[in-house]
Every structure is written in C-alpha cells, then in structure tokens.
C-alpha cells in the first residue's frame, strides 16, 4: 500500500509546530532527527490574514481547549485555551503535536475501496457518492432481510453527543451492537457498580484531596484527563495557598508518576489488593476509619445474617483474619512499618482518597483489587465528598424516545446486557463472529478504533474479521484493523471538522465542548457524522425520522437547545467567572450570559463550550443504588449475578458459597511457566498515552525521555537481571512469550524490579504512518487472560524470557 507524500506540506507546518512546542516550555530534548530532515528544506511561510480560533484537541478523550493561530488557510500554531474548564490553558506534549496530525504526509486523502482480498488488500480511490451509497445500500439490504441486528458498530468508550447519535442510529436501525473499546477505568468502574450500584462514570475531586494513595495508576502519564490531573498535581504543591497534599505512588516500577510523587512504594506486581487490605487492617485495628460513615452508609462491614438465617463474613472479619500486617508485608514485599505508616497517614488526613488498582488510560486493573482500593475510600468516608470519589455529573440532555425497530431484543454480541457490569467485553466479539453464535455478523462499522493493534487478542480479531462479509472504517490514517475493511472512509482531523466532547474521564463536572472547523478539510475527507446522517436519510423511514438533521452542525445545534432548556450552568469563561459562578450557583442562583438558545450556541462556539461548575456532594440516594442503598463491602449485586452462574466460583478459584467471592480480596497471582522467568508488564508513557501517537515524529522524539530512548521501543530491564543474562545497555534482545517473540533494544533501568521487564505501548504498527511502524507492539506477546468478574483483559500476567538476539 502506498500513498503519495506531500513532503512540502508537512514541512510548512512543522516550523509552526516546533515553535509552538518551544514557546510552551516543553523540553524538546534533541529534535535532531526531525530538524536534520528539515534543515535542507525550504520552509514556505503561508500568507493571508492572521487569526486565533478556538478549537479542541482531538488526541485523547480529555479534549483540551485550544487556541489555534491561522494564517490564511493554514493552522500554524496551537496553544491551550485558558477558558477551558478541564485544561485551563494547559496542553500535554501530545496536544502540542496536534499540527503534525493535520499536515501528516501519510494521512488518508480519499475514500478507498479494497479491490483485492482481505489478506492482500489493493486500494482504489473512489468518490464519496460511491462510498456512501455502498454502505447505505448494504445497510438497507440487511435491514430489509431482517438482519439489522447483525450489524456491529465499534467505537471509542466515550459518552458524548457523537455516541448518542450513533446509538440513536443503531436503535432506530435495529441493532443492539454498539460496542466500545476498553478503558483504563473499567476495573474501578466495575467496583463502583458492584459496591455502589451505579453505572455513572466515576470521577475524583483530585484538586480538593489532601492525601492520595495511588495503586499503580499512571496519574501523570495520560490517565483520566491528563491536563486536569497535572493541574491538580500543581495545586497539591501550592505553597502560596498554604496547601500540601501528600501523594504516594504504590507500584512495582519507578514510573514518571512515581518519580514525581512524594513517596514511591515498590510492591510486588499484582498484589495491589493485598496492599489495600493491609492498609484497611491498620485502619480497622487502630480505629482510624470513619466509623460514623461506615455505620450509616455501608453494608457488609460486620458479619451479617441473610433472610434465610445464614451468617456471612463481613469485611472486618475478612481483613482481620487474612490480611494481617505481617502477612501483607510478605505478600507485597512492602515492609510492615511502611504499610503501618501509610495507613496512619491515610487515616489521619482528610479528605483522603485511594485510586486504583493498577491502571493506565487503556489498561484496566482487576475488579477485586479495585474493590479493595475503593473500600479504603469507604473507610475514610471519602465517597461523594469534596476531595473524594464522586460520580461524574450528567449533561441535562433530553432523552428522546426511539420507536422500537422490529424485533429489537437480540442479545449483544459481546454478551453484555445494557447497564450490566460496566466492563467492556469487546474481546468476546471474535468468538461470536467465528462461531456465528448467537447469530452471524454481516457487517462491522469501525469508528476511529483499531482493535487488531490495541487489544491482546488482536490477532483473533484479525482472523475473525476475515469472516465478516462487509467492513467499513471511518479513520484519518490507515491502521491494522482498517486494512481489513472493504471501504475506508477518511475523516478530517480535529482542526478540520466540527468537534464536540463531553466530560472527560474521571472529571467530576458536566462539560460539553463544541468547536467549529478551524481550517478547511485538506483532502477529500468528510465528517463521519455527516456520512451517518446521509445514510440515515437514504434509509429513510424510522431511521431517517430518528435522525432528521441536515448535518453534524445541525445536530449539535439541536442538542445545545437541550442545554439551554435546562436553565443551568454557564459558558466557558475566565477563572474569575468560574469562581463567581460557582459561588452563586452553590447558593441557588443562576447568572447566565445568554438569554436564548441561539445566544448560547454562539457563545459556546466562541468560548469552546458549556459546563456546570458546581458539584453537589453527599447526595446519597444518587451515590448508592445497591440493594442495601449503601456502599457494599460485601457486594450483593455480585452475589445475585453469580447465583445464576454455577461456574463463577471455580473461575475465581474459590469454593461455591465462599463469602470472599463477593468481598474484595487478593486474586491469585500468575505463576511463571517453566522457561519463562520474567514477568512482562506493558507500560504507557505520556507522549504515547493510550498507545496512540506513535505516528507523530515529535512524540517519537520525546517518548522515552527518561532513558533517552527515541524513535523506537525499548525493553526496560533491571541492571542486575541484565548482568545475569549477559545483556548490556543498548543490546538488541529477543523477548519471547509462549505466544510470540519480538526483537527490541534493551535499556538497563534500575527503576524496574529484577523479576519484571517492561515494554511501552504504542509502538510496532504494521500499517499507516511510516513513523508508527517503529518498535514492537507488546500486545502481540501477551497472554489472553480475562478476569472472571467483568471479563477485563489482564495484561500484566504474561511471563517471558529475554536473551540477546
């Protein structure tokens, strides 16, 4: 596959991009390779009127606010928008690379049809008319044949206006299969569902917290909403305000997050649950927990008796009998004195919050460990309190009725009933496709996702997609999954299109950002929303009636009408306005700057969006929807769910009837198989957070800055382990798991544990951008392993051997 590369276009932008990065104070350690490539080239400065235009960063779900400088038809510089309530003018290094996306030479430039085969694709550029009519005709035929449910849509795990549009489309069309990629928050979201009974996204009031225990969450490397977390981090050390929040990072590796924490506690991999329960042990035995909160708002702390008179073990009994301090010290490898001290600090500081377990922006931890960590929040009374764990406020959008489309009771192909465990079971899709059970899959539509590359069972996805009769992908760059499609529908990049974003991950407040295109689309690309609406119109009937919008802009304008009707909240504004609005709203007054929906729309376009700056804490009825209407240490929700699954206990590794099945506990760690002595733990680094961004040279340049590893992936190995294996820093080595083998350069890193090696995510593409193809993809080496509760991929349990190549 090859595309023409317009190098000149790329270079024109690059001058602006580098300037933006430099003036934003980001360390660009040696852009030598890129600069050398640019030095001999002519840089053409574009002409025309200059403007600063508001926009949004599209490179991660935080969707930070941008101000983009345009000269004539070109975007030449990106800055953060100080009005944006999440980022407040900040941008991460990835955001600064945004212009490299727009002017990337390997972008898709026109709709493509695969005129070869799935195994050996050959791409032909086609017209948009042909592309749209192909998809629309296929969907019409399937619907006409009663096979609407056999259409699958795979999207990002976001709850925004776009996802509502697609869901509405599918509901009217007749498919239950709106499937999403996993998120790093899935484990904690599962814990929140099991212990609080809610499916609303979990969020943290990080700025307000005074003590933070992070169980392996890469807080400063792309987790949640990176700029918001970094801002909170700054506030923790705000000497002027007389504040000092202590931040303790508990994880096996000395990550960048650990390096910036007040204290790093190195624990044995996979023992986060034991560590959390060891801390709970101290809180309980020393009476350092919030006894009133536990008494009034929790269930299952003490042993309890069910309706049949059977006594069940409570959290206290479990912790006191199985997680004694010295036992936990042995399990975790953390000295008992350290656990004791941390527990006392956690118990004596309010508000204190615990996050985890081990998570990145895309890799979730284990639900039992997440329950153990979340139980610490209940012990410290930090649920729905300032500085604690909260539930993300919802946008006040009208839920519109969608008429049922024929027989719409087909099960979802990921076997996840709507509003059941919030874990994402996309990994189950290939099995359904290959087995044709419960029904065959006739079409897959992908939007900006790449499961073949991003999931541990990517290879199974590849095989199963060979069997799907029709695949279309909306994307800006060719990727491993799109290369299996029949049609590739090129999307404009963020700055070239209407964008919108709702509250980003882990952010407490209701937010809706909107931005019009900054510049005209550079290639023959079209907004996926416009295509979807055009297809809806083509299908007509119920589908057309459900989506009666001319284009995405009209849809967004319609939704802004909902926001206006809610008669609350405010348009993005200065920090001062924000503080003022919060004071006023908290006391029950509303001071809008607009009086009509049109005014709101105009102001949102100008300022970047609308949000509710006030969070109402302590609304317990909203916070705990469990059977007991309390936080449940002992999850009755899980017990009820498991009661119809006889094999559940065995999958967990416990006997049926064991109360620990429904209590937080330490899941078994994975034993190393013979011949594979080292544990492989993939890592995410901020420039390639979410495993994305490897296609951008600026990010390649700065990704491995802690080891000066640039432009390729690296294997972090402890110097002592390396010495035993005869490996020197920089040697090319083979990393071999039972599943596969990869070659990579070894970097000696004392921050790794001797028994663990690490590979960064985001490298090793086989399709798309030339720069993304560097390095290896750790996903290709990982065992397929899922937790028995929510079916979340467990990516930290694969063992490997490492040897010099």
């Amino acid at each position, binding site marked *: 596959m090859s595309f023409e590369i317009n190098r000149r276009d790329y270079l024109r932008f690059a001058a602006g991009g580098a300037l933006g990065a430099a003036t934003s104070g980001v360390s660009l350690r040696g852009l030598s390779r890129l600069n050398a490539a640019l030095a001999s080239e002519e840089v053409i400065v574009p002409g025309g009127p200059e403007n600063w235009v508001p926009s949004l960063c599209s490179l991660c779900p935080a969707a930070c606010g941008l101000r983009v400088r345009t000269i004539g038809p070109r975007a030449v510089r990106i800055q953060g928008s100080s009005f944006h309530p999440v980022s407040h003018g900040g941008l991460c290094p990835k955001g600064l690379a945004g212009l490299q996306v727009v002017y990337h030479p390997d972008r898709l430039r026109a709709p493509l049809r695969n005129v070869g085969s799935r195994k050996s694709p050959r791409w032909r550029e086609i017209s948009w008319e042909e592309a749209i009519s192909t998809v629309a005709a296929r969907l019409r035929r399937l619907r006409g044949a009663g096979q609407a449910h056999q259409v699958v849509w795979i999207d990002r795990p976001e709850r925004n206006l776009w996802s509502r549009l697609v869901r509405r489309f599918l509901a009217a069309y007749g498919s239950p299969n709106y499937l999403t990629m996993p998120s790093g928050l899935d484990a904690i979201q599962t814990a929140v569902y099991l212990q609080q009974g809610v499916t609303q996204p979990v969020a943290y009031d990080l700025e307000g917290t005074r003590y933070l225990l992070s169980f392996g969450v890469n807080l400063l490397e792309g987790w949640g909403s990176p700029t918001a977390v970094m801002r909170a981090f700054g506030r923790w050390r705000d000497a002027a305000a007389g504040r000092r929040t202590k931040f303790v990072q508990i994880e096996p590796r000395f990550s960048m997050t650990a390096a910036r924490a007040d204290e790093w506690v190195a624990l044995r991999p996979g023992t986060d649950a034991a560590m959390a329960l060891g801390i709970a042990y101290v809180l309980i035995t020393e009476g350092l927990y919030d006894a009133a909160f536990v008494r009034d708002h929790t269930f299952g702390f003490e042993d309890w008796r069910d309706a049949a008179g059977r006594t069940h073990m409570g959290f206290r009994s479990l912790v006191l009998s199985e997680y004694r301090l010295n036992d936990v010290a042995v399990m975790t490898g953390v000295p008992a004195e350290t656990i004791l001290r941390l527990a006392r600090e956690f118990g004596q500081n309010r508000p204190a919050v615990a996050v985890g377990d081990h998570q990145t922006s895309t890799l979730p931890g284990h639900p039992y460990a997440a329950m153990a960590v979340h139980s610490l929040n209940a012990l410290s009374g930090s649920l729905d309190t300032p500085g604690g764990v909260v539930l993300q406020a919802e946008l006040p959008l009208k839920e519109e009725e969608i008429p049922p489309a024929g027989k719409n009771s087909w099960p979802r192909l990921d076997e996840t009933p709507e509003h059941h465990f919030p874990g994402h079971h996309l990994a189950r899709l290939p099995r359904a496709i290959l087995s044709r059970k419960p029904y065959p899959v006739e079409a897959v539509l992908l939007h900006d996702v790449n499961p073949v590359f991003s999931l541990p069972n990517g290879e199974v996805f590849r095989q199963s997609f060979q069997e799907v009769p029709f695949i279309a992908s909306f994307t800006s760059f060719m990727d491993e999954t799109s290369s299996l499609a029949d049609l590739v529908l090129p999307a404009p990049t963020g700055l070239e299109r209407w964008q919108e974003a709702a509250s980003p991950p882990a952010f407490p407040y209701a937010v809706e950002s909107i931005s019009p295109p900054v510049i005209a689309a550079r290639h023959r690309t079209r907004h996926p929303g416009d295509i979807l609406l055009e297809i809806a119109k083509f299908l007509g009937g119920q589908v057309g009636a459900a989506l009666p919008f001319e284009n995405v802009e009209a849809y967004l304008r319609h939704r802004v009408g909902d926001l206006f009707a809610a008669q*609350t909240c405010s348009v993005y504004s200065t920090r*001062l306005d924000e503080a*003022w609005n919060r004071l006023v709203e908290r*006391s*029950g007054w509303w001071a809008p700057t607009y009086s009509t929906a049109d005014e709101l729309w105009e102001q949102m376009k100008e300022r970047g969006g609308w949000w509710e700056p006030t969070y109402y804490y302590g609304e317990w009825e*909203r916070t705990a*929807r469990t059977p007991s209407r309390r936080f449940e240490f002992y999850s009755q929700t899980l017990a009820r769910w498991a009661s119809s699954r006889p094999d559940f206990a065995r999958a967990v590794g416990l006997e049926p009837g064991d109360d620990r099945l429904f209590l937080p506990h330490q899941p078994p760690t994975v034993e190393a198989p013979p011949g594979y002595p080292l544990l492989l733990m993939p890592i995410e680094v901020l420039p390639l957070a979410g495993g994305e961004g490897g296609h951008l040279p600026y990010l390649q340049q700065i990704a491995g800055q802690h080891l000066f590893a640039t432009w390729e992936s690296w294997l972090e190995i402890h110097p002592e382990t390396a010495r035993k294996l005869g490996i020197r820093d920089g040697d090319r080595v083979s990393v071999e798991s039972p599943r596969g083998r990869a070659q990579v350069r070894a970097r000696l890193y004392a921050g790794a544990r001797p028994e663990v090696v690490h590979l960064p995510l985001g490298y090793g593409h086989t399709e798309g951008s030339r720069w993304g193809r560097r390095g290896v993809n750790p996903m290709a080496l990982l065992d397929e392993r899922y937790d028995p509760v929510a079916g979340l991929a467990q990516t930290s349990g694969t063992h490997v051997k490492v040897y010099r190549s």
Partner: protein
Amino acid sequence: MIAIAKRISIEKHGIPSLRPLLTGVCVLCLATPLLTAQVQGGGAYFLSGNTKAGMQTFFDKGCARCHAVLGEGGRAAPDLARAPGGNLSAAELVAGMWNHAPAMWEKMRLQRLAPPKFSEEEMTNLFAFLYSVRALDEPGDAERGRRLVAEKRCLECHSLAGQGGRAGPDLRSWASYRNPVSWIQAMWNHAQPMQAMMAARGLSWPQFLGNDMTDLMAYIRTLAANSKGHVYLRQANAETGRELFRQKGCVSCHAIRGAGGSRAPDLGRRALPRTLGQLAGLMWNHAPAMWASMRAQQVPRPQFSNQEMADLIAYLFAERYFEMAGNAERGRRRFEEKGCAGCHTAGAKADTAPDLAGWRGGGSPIPVATALWNHGPLMLEKMRQQEIPWPRFRPGEIVDLLEFLNRGQFSPALAKAKP
C-alpha cells in the same frame, strides 16, 4: 441575587421614604460605577460586572491570602462572607474594616506584606463584592438537616423517602430546587392549607432561623435519587422588587425607613439576617402574624411567583446597603470625642493630616475605606508616635461622622489646636 447594582436616582424614586437616602451617603455613591451599574443587558447580570471586578480586586490585592469568602481563600483571617454575622450595610463594612485595620497591618508586617492600596473604583467594587457574597446562602449541613426534620416535625404531614405523613407532598419532590427562597416561596403559596392542617393537628408554626432551611434542603437532597435537575433562581431585580413591594400591598403595613404603613415593622430599620434565604425564612416565620393582621384589615394574602419572591427579597437587601442618613450633630461630637479633630485641623498640610473640609458632599463609606487603606498605615504610625490610640467606631457612628463631613460643617472652631 441581590441587586445592589440598582439604579437609584432622584427622578426615579417613587417611594418618598427613599428620598432621605439620596442625601448623605447615597448621593455620593451615585457617582461610583457600582451603584450606577446596569442590572440587565450587555452581559451584566444581577450581580453586576463590578461585583465580579470586586472579586478580582479581592484576589489581586492579596485579601484572599488571609481571608476567605464562603470557604474560598486563605484561612489565616475570618471568612468575610460569614463573619461578622447579620446583614452589614456599607457603613458597617467600613466600620469593621476600620476597627480591625491595625491588627491586619500588623499581621501583614509580620509576613512582610505591604498593605495594598486601592483606587476608589476598586474599593467600590470590593464593597459590592463583599456585600453581595455575604448575601449568598451556603450549601447546608445535611446532618443538621436530618435532625431538623425531626425537630420541626415536618414528617407529621409530609412524607420523605417512604416515611412520614401523606397529607403533604413528598419533600423529595422539591429536591431539585436549589434556592432556599424558592422553598419559602412554594411554602408561602401553600401556606393556607398548611396552616389549617397544622392547627387541626396541634402543630406549631415551624420557624426557620439561620441556616435551617439550607440544612433541611441539603438533607432532603441526600435522599433524592434524581440528580439531573437543578432549578435555580434567575437574577433578581431590586427595581422590580420595589414595585412588587407596592403592588402586593406590603407597603400598606411595612415602611422603609418611615415611608409606608406603620402597622408592621419598618423594614428599613430592622436588623436583617445575613443571607437572602434567611430573610425569606424570616418572612415565613412571621407569616401567621402577618396574615392575621391582613385578615383583620381584609387585605388578601399576597401570592408570589418564584421570581417575584426573589425580586422582593433583593429589593429589601439592596435598601440595606445604604445605611440611613446619619446625624450631623452626633457626627460632630464623634469627631471630637474620637480625637479626629486633634489632627485633621482646618487648613492642615499633607505632612500632618488632611483638612477634611474637602470631603464636603463626598463622605461615603467608599472614600473612607479607600483613604483608610491608602493612608492608614502612615496615620497609625504617626498616632503611635504621639501615643494616640486608634479610634474605634460603631457603624452608626461612622454614618453620623460621614453625615457631618458631608454637610461640610467642619470648621476650625471644632478643631483643637495641635499641641
């Protein structure tokens, strides 16, 4: 919220009782942006842009380093939204500032902070901000609210989360109303059947004092599952409130500083609670007595829409910002007693203390506060050298003093020659 940004002008004042305001303090205030700020239009809202400018001043000048407002800001000094309690007029604010100034400067000196200087406009805005923010109700204390539900016996008639009576609506159905004024308004409009039912059950009329109402609301919110709806009150308009005061017949019983009926307390003279919600609560507390008096005079009970109640309350608050005119003669005596006359002699030079005769027609709390901050530290120093104690004023004394200065009756005869 409160429209201290109300436009007061002689021409516009239809209520004769307001006329005295136009002399003394208020005439001078009219010149300031605060008091001429528009309530509506141009993006300005009920708390005018100047109020926000005042908030900016509060942070820019470093006030927030030590003081907080409603919990936002420093912890070293009192939260200026909460302390002192009660509703403070501009004169009361300046009296408080004056009396605490030496202690503040001393703290700043210890922290090596220079006392900030203010322009009159900044001070005007700062006063607007402080006055406004003090009128805001705070999110309540749910735990206290839980106890109040029992104490006030709300559940004798109302249900709440499956408990209590059936005679009144489930209190959770109001949970989305975020403003205590809205709650009082809803209760007010339904008070007649409530009153009858309570009488039949031998229940006493519930009183809402201090933060009772917001605490109750906070508790009820903890029991309401639906978090989606937040019903706020829109900006209140004091001008409309003034009109409502007349239309709804309030003026036939209540006066504002002597203008109006005399059967009920003069609302311009009575001490008001600090917040708007608390004032609404006060109205509720006295409702049975009001209605009895109305019945005797065959005046119908007024009903209020949500916004009308807000406007009316805002009007009463706005009035209070302008302390009634002082007494020049009393002011003259204060000027002597407090030792002001010892330094501020007629024709005094800048190196001693300025001749305050120049303040004729210009003595309002704002210039006093501005002068206090800009010249006070030096004045304090000079007084210390001369072993003169820093004078302390009660709010009424400040008003009298201002009236005295405004009248320009300052004369050399009043001043003792400096030793």
